[in-house]
């Protein structure tokens, strides 16, 4: 505790000293970079100013009364307590103002709901605690996880510029094209939000939601999960890279080739050391959030892997849990999320690291056989 307090005090000192350096006093909504986000921004400002004007009028009357009609200034109370004309007026006028607000709001909403005629469809799936993007019709998809290190989060190193808002694999979309997002989730409800696009939609397990955007300006846009989704809700950012259409096509081809090369790795002849080395990276990206950097977990919710006798004693069971998940718990089915190489690697890693030293391994080909045998 003492160390933590000292760290906190040091952190406080640093943040106070460096406050001007990172001074960011953003107070308002971003106008964003799409037609819809601009409309929403204008709607927001219009309503804000209407509220300000009403507020100024009401509070002016009130403050004037507070100033002038106080007993200490010798004010004598009037005795009126109703006035039908005034009461009708301040019921009808607000209704008219509301109608004036509702008309542009309705028109914007209709545009937001028009997901027809898209140039490109992308499936977004929320996982605890990362995103998966699938390019529909392209047979290509990937996971996108936060790339900020835990050392930064736990104040052990300096925080980078895009702290908590950076990922390993950003979503890439072409500029100037209407992109339709189909959204769902694998476990709990998440919400995919990029403020600059004014796209926010809940991703709900078992259901598919729709949203769309068209971004003309290439650039990098950042967002976060907006719906509480468990422990690491704060740590599943969204990064979207908008590139010119040609660059997008090149990127997509290159990615598909790389994915094909990755699939070929399944047939490679792997050694235990190679698998452990690769497994360590997989573990750090996928498993560490629940099972901990040292495999101690957080029983009873997240079991320890270190010295887990059930797991170490039965390799088939171990592989089964990883491939199929455990229903009713946070343990997901990784069979379709990870490549066979990564599945083999992380199984081999957990059996031969984290204080375990089982000496056995499973190859990617054995994983493939295991998965085929289930079908």
């Amino acid at each position, binding site marked *: 505790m003492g160390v933590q307090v000292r760290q906190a005090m040091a952190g406080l000192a640093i*943040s106070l000293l460096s406050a001007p350096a990172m001074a960011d006093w953003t*107070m308002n909504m971003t106008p964003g970079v799409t037609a819809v986000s601009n409309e929403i921004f204008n709607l927001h400002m219009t309503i804000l100013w209407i509220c300000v004007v009403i507020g100024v009028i009401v509070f002016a009357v009130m403050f004037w009364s507070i100033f002038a009609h106080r007993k200490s200034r010798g004010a004598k109370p009037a005795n009126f307590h109703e006035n039908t004309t005034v*009461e009708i007026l*301040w019921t009808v006028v607000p209704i008219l103002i*509301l109608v004036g607000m509702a008309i542009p709001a309705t028109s914007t909403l209709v545009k937001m709901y028009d997901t027809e005629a898209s140039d490109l469809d992308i499936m977004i799936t929320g996982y605890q605690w990362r995103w998966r993007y699938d390019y529909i019709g392209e047979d290509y998809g990937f996971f996108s996880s936060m790339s900020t290190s835990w050392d930064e989060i736990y104040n052990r190193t300096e925080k980078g510029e895009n702290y*908590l808002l950076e990922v390993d694999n950003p979503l890439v979309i072409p500029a100037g094209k209407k992109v339709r997002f189909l959204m769902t989730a694998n*476990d709990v409800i998440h919400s995919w939000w990029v403020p600059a696009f004014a796209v926010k939609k809940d991703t709900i397990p078992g259901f598919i939601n729709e949203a769309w955007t068209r971004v003309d300006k290439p650039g990098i846009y950042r967002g976060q999960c907006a719906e509480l989704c*468990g422990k690491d809700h704060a740590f599943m950012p969204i990064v979207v890279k908008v590139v010119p259409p040609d660059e997008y096509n090149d990127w997509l081809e290159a990615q598909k080739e790389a994915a094909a090369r990755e699939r070929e790795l399944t047939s490679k002849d792997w050694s235990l050391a190679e698998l452990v080395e690769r497994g360590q990276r997989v573990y750090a990206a996928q498993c560490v959030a629940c099972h901990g950097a040292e495999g101690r977990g957080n029983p009873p919710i997240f079991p320890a892997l270190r010295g887990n006798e059930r797991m170490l004693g039965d390799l088939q069971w171990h592989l089964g849990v990883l491939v199929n998940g455990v229903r009713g718990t946070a343990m997901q089915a990784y069979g379709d999320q990870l490549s066979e190489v990564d599945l083999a690697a992380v199984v081999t890693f957990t059996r031969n690291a984290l204080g375990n030293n089982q000496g056995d391994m499973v190859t990617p080909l054995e994983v493939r056989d295991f998965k085929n045998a289930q079908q």
Partner: protein
Amino acid sequence: MGSHAQDHHHGPAKGISRWLFTTNHKDIGSMYLIFSFAMFLIGGAMAMVIRAELFQPGLQIVEPNFFNQMTTMHGLIMVFGAVMPAFVGLANWMLPLMVGAPDMALPRMNNWSFWLLPAAFLMLLSTLFMPGGAPNFGWTFYAPLSTTYGPPSTTFFIFAVHIMGVSSIMGAINVIATILNMRAPGMTLMKMPLFVWTWLITAFLLIAVMPVLAGVVTMMLMDIHFGTSFFDAAGGGDPVLFQHIFWFFGHPEVYIMILPAFGVVSQIIPAFARKPLFGYASMVYAVGAIAILSFLVWAHHMFTVGIPLFGQLFFMYATMLIAVPTGVKVFNWVATMFRGSMTFEAPMLFSVAFVILFTIGGFSGLMLAIAPADFQYHDTYFVVAHFHYVLVPGAIFGIYAAVYYWLPKWTGHMYDEVLAKTHFWMSFVGMNLAFFPMHFLGLAGMPRRIPDYALQFSNFNMISSIGAFMFGLTQLLFLFIVVKCALGGPKAPAKPWEGAEGLEWEVDSPAPYHTFSTPPEIK
């Protein structure tokens, strides 16, 4: 039983049995108020943990899972443990005095509905010490995060919600029975004080929606333990169904927390403006309209879940309509102050701040009602700012105003006005410092319910935390003021406020243990 000894027994019982077995509305009212303040301090301590963690970016004090337990328990305790019981306490103390009744209509049930609460909240708080920790899925406990993915303690949380629901329903039945049956002869409905009116309508809301809450947690229980799939798409259920049911309870619930405060302020402003309340009848109709509309707007909490366009439009228009009766109430309060002869003792200070700050919360509520804009506001700190503006200077300031207004009647002593004004100004500054920057954070894009945030949110979070600590500490001053007033102080007359009106001021201060054994005459 009916022995003569009991007929002549006018004072309270001695010792602990006075509090355990009491059926006296004043004793029960005091217990409700003390209980709710204890819960307010516990829930407030959790808020301090939250704000300490958010003081600067990075994880310093607590782990994310514990942070989620804090936000969840803070919300549950403040809503169900602090605000609602405080208003029931005020109702217990004041409704019989205001309608000229000797006690609540159902005194033994009254005792039970209070004593259920400590049981429920002990159970809820005990989850903090269970393996896996307390509920960590937010006070809205959305499925499947709270069902399939909830901690083992979720079952205890469900049972606690059931018990507090039973308590609320019994309290509401008691309020309705008292108001409808026990008014002094001559007190017609449209002569009732507004605090009585607002509580009558609140009680109907409670009876309508607490069973819905009980239903939704029971469905959770079935999903967790009995293999049903109400909220699990894999079994044919629907996670969004949970949200529809929850918010059908949840939206009227927010009015349950604010309508009695409307009533309090409608008593206090005329008293300190020395002028009758402007538009009494329209105040009553406005509260009724708000109550009815509150059942038709629940999906405005769900604009981003993917409800159809027509649904979005219906719930947007219905929600915007609430601004009309709410506006009427604000205009009426201002018109009451206009050309009055005002003084600004603590109850009036809290009431005036209520009108100003609740109106600001109302404006942000109107902004949130605009469905397209809500896609940017939803689940950000803008929402956190909005509901804290309606709940802290709304419900909480309303309760403080009520306590200062009626404290002389309860204790027989005047409270220390200087300290009370200090309490007001520190609370006012602290509260605005804590919650106003949250509007900026939300608009700039900070999601709610996160233990750590990107660097551009640092400055306003630090200011907000400083304000929160100031507000939190100030509430200990309130405890001191009330204890000081209970123990002694200048003797309060039967009617300590020059402009106050109502039957409660016709009995002595402190109010005798039994009042209005014969009904008063209404002129």
